[in-house]
């Protein structure tokens, strides 16, 4: 079965529409969404309505959680005071413009989905806020896949797509306890993979194109898709609706403008 997995739409209806068309052209039989339907972008209600109407299985992202629970993550959420000011402005705009049924839909989203040996989360299996970057420590990455019991972990949140294979993982340990004979432990893991599906509505891979992933469950082939769309239309809507204009600039560049957080694996204490 050919499956399409997408994430981080962020209220960008134009991008979503183009990605859905691309998915249709590639004859994917199933679509799964990894959350962050809202935030930053100008069309949060329309995006949620589209996802709902197509009955796309979706997990809850960090922005979806923030809109439901309120902004109560710890101070590490933003890498700078400037980023915090802009992020909070986007949150307040989204919070004011979102319809009750949209909020209810976001509140009911699960944190993970499972299909055979595939697991789907927004950030990591431990938190919607954890960034699984492509260069995060390999054993830490392996633990995230193993903690799900799956062979393939699909995630988003970083807005940069990648496929990371973790092969022939092995660890050896000894355990000493008073009064107990020393025990030797060994651990081995066959091939595991992390597939980050990038971002439909707010890409950060250096180009403004929307990204998502096609996955063939029979052949296990992964295709990173990059889809052109009229991003300038979304940029204009961002400015027109009173969202911080820096978000339009960022969307047009396909870049993160702010400095990166020191510890991307840090999990907020909410």
């Amino acid at each position: 079965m050919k499956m399409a997995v997408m994430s981080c739409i962020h209220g960008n209806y134009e991008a979503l529409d183009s990605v859905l068309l691309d998915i249709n052209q590639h004859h994917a039989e199933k679509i799964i969404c990894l959350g962050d339907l809202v935030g930053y972008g100008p069309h949060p209600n329309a995006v949620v309505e589209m996802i709902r109407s197509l009955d796309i299985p979706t997990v809850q992202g960090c922005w979806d959680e923030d809109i439901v629970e309120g902004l109560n993550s710890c101070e590490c959420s933003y890498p700078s005071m400037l980023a915090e000011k802009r992020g909070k402005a986007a949150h307040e705009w989204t919070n004011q413009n979102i319809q009750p049924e949209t909020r209810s839909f976001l509140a009911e989203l699960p944190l993970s989905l499972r299909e055979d040996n595939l697991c789907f989360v927004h950030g990591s299996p431990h938190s919607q806020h954890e960034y699984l970057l492509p260069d995060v420590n390999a054993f830490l990455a392996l633990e995230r896949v193993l903690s799900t019991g799956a062979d393939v972990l699909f995630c988003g949140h970083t807005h940069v797509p990648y496929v990371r294979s973790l092969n022939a993982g092995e660890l050896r340990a000894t355990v000493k306890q008073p009064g107990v004979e020393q025990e030797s432990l060994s651990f081995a893991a066959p091939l595991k993979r992390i597939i980050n599906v990038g971002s439909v509505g707010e890409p950060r891979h250096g180009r403004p194109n929307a990204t998502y992933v096609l996955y063939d469950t029979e052949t296990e082939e992964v295709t990173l898709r990059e889809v052109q769309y009229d991003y300038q239309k979304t940029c204009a809507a961002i400015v027109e609706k009173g969202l911080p204009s820096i978000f339009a600039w960022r969307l047009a560049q396909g870049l993160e403008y702010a400095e990166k957080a020191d510890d991307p694996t840090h999990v907020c204490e909410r």
Partner: protein
Amino acid sequence: MTIWAMLSGIEGNLAAYEAVLADLKRQRTEIDELYILGDLVGATSESEDLVQRVRSPRRGEIEPQVCAGWWEEQCFILHGVSTQSEAPELIAKYGADTVKLLWDAVPHETVKWLRSLNFGFFELDSLLIHGSTVGVDDELTPKTSPVQMLDRLMRSDANNLFCGRSGLTFEYELHQGSVTVAVTTLDRQQEPIVNTVSPRRVIGVGNVGRSPGKATYTLYDPGINHVEFKTIRYGGTGFKVAQMARSAQGEHKPKNSRV
């Protein structure tokens, strides 16, 4: 030579704490630092006296450095100073009656002091903590999988992780590991590379107060990376000490901070 003494899980048992202090005084080598890795209090009437004893060491005694544990977290929940509003874990483990016992045992002023405690300590290349950086309820035991142990060490970038949640004394050494990694992005395909792991340890420091008449704790010499587990029998005619030593060598990265 520098020696750290590490205790955890006193759980409001004042007699057990006194027995450990007495044993520390009997050591051939002077103790330089005394760390209490959480669960200072418990649902016992002695908890408040124990807190005062810890906060006011007698002449010649080391001032303990204390971090918060699972029982402290239950106090925070009951007194409304936690991110959680209910204590299902406390009720599930110890029954609903324990809620009132703990409420009565630890007054609000003491809870405010407990709330000011660190979540853990980072000394040299070692993390000293009740559970792990994942949480106070994260119980690392000799049965924990190697990959999970390594994850807990990597999260804090520590070579040694001293913890107390399990109440057990153990030394869990990860001495070898590898994984082959390859990354493909939209613009490049990386050749597979082998990542290896350097030796690291998780040490369970024991439990002082949970078992009446028996306390366990840990001594550590960071200079030579030597761990020694201590078991004390107390009560009755006096203290009977059994010593069990375990040692290991390792490298050090200078680092000092509070977590």
